[in-house]
């Protein structure tokens, strides 16, 4: 949920026409930086998320790993994905990746959503669900390349991480950032975080022996407002299924926002065409016209 007093809207799902508030405020793009190389998997961020957002508790599952549950839930927006990764030299490595909404610059959920105002993107880059406008169709699940939105069958609404838009709107950092004990989580402007991430990746490459260390900020979705530093940026899939090349299905881009309106226009143009056919050539009346007087034809 958002704080509309302080965050200006940049994009609204399924909203014809202009967006009120766009370009009405000086606003920097915010960004969360997750340094997977210094995450110890303590789950403080998971707890902080549940606490701050007052989410009802759900059962956790134990599967012999350091992961709280198999995947995020409608009431659990933030999950440390644990992976035991075997390196090329046969040694093991524990990969901890904080999984949550990536707050894409080009959000697939927002593109797929058919309900006006159910998903908004703020000028600062946060993508937020407005449950009061959500119709529960779950198309956002299909539009999201990161498998983030979660459906609540009771309320028939979809939920996900809001990047604590209520806190950010008041000048605070998100709850997860606040709780992180190792400092693997950072929050600031996108430019600052990108710079910090790149310098950390460089440090890992030059001094820690992670030659392939790099920053995950996929351009295919216009960049994200949650970025990662990975030990091996060439293999994000190893971090609990982080897609290497995330894409929004073209059905929600070219089809929905271009071809479909054209098709609809064509259908209505056809209706106009029918009308003018009627005007130009007239109806197909019963023949012969005019009928003789004793004909019981319809007149």
């Amino acid at each position: 949920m958002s704080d509309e007093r302080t965050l200006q809207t940049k994009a609204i799902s399924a909203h014809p026409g202009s967006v009120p508030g766009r370009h009405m405020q000086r606003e920097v793009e915010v960004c969360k930086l997750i340094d997977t190389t210094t995450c110890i998997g303590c789950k403080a961020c998971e707890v902080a998320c549940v606490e701050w957002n007052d989410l009802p508790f759900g059962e956790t599952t134990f599967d012999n790993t350091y992961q709280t549950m198999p995947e995020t839930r409608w009431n659990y927006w933030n999950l440390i994905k644990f992976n035991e990764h075997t390196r090329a030299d046969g040694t093991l490595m524990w990969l901890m990746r904080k999984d949550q909404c990536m707050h894409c610059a080009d959000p697939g959920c927002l593109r797929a959503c058919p309900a006006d105002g159910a998903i908004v993107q703020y000028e600062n880059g946060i993508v937020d669900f407005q449950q009061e406008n959500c119709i529960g169709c779950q198309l956002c699940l299909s539009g999201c390349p990161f498998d983030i939105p979660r459906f609540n069958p009771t309320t028939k609404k979809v939920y996900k991480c809001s990047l604590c838009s209520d806190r950010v709107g008041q000048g605070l950092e998100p709850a997860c950032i606040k709780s992180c004990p190792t400092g693997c989580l950072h929050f600031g402007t996108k430019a600052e975080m990108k710079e910090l991430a790149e310098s950390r990746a460089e440090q890992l490459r030059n001094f820690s022996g992670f030659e392939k260390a790099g920053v995950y900020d996929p351009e295919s979705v216009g960049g994200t407002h949650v970025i990662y530093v990975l030990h091996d940026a060439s293999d994000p899939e190893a971090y609990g299924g982080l897609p290497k090349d995330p894409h929004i299905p073209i059905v929600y881009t070219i089809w929905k926002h271009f071809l479909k309106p054209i098709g609809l226009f064509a259908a209505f143009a056809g209706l106009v065409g029918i009308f003018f056919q009627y005007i130009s050539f007239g109806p197909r009346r019963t023949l012969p016209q005019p009928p003789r007087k004793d004909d019981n034809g319809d007149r």
Partner: protein
Amino acid sequence: MATVENLRRMQKSGGSGRTIVYEGEVLRHSVYTRVVHWLVAISFILALLSGFALFTPWLYAWLAPIFGSGARARLLHPWFGLAFVITVLFQFRGWISQMRWQPEDRQWLRQIKDYTIKTDQPEADYVGKFNAGQKIWFWTMGISVLVFLITGVFLWFPEHLGRTAMWICYFFHDLMGLIMLGGFFIHLYEGTGGIPGTLRGMLHGTVTRAWAWTHHPAWYREVTGRDPRTDREGQR
């Protein structure tokens, strides 16, 4: 289900409702056919309106309020759609034998331009109870219920559907909706303004003899045993 039972009984006995055929008229649609047609029509229009509410942002604000809200449109649309599919099945039972594609239907399609322009010409002698255009609409509906049902059930309960399967369903559901919208416009026009005297066939069940020999000559010959051409010329 009670409605379904009634329909069955109605078809068997011809008991509920009747069609009065007055002098100079021909029975075109039985009570059963009419009832089924209008059940199809009502469910189709409801499904169409609630579906197009979610079709594009440009229609959402216009159509969603008809059903209370977008959420309600989403909730009701699958039920309207299901009603449409079921009623179409009944329509299929009644009409499928008359909708078989015949060699002369190709001939009709070749002259479709004349059909729209030369409106003062009667239909060709071979045109039976339904012309090729009506048959195409019938079979389009048949295909549409298949597509709508398969993709629709998945979109109704997408919880366990992968994101790829979901956008594929979404695409074909959309595409079919668009085709049906276009077809519906044509059907509406042909059934009302385009061919005067047609609508009453679906309301009262009867059409005039002149209507029958003009628009469906072969059918006229079949039901009256008279020659449509002779009767038509005899009126001059």
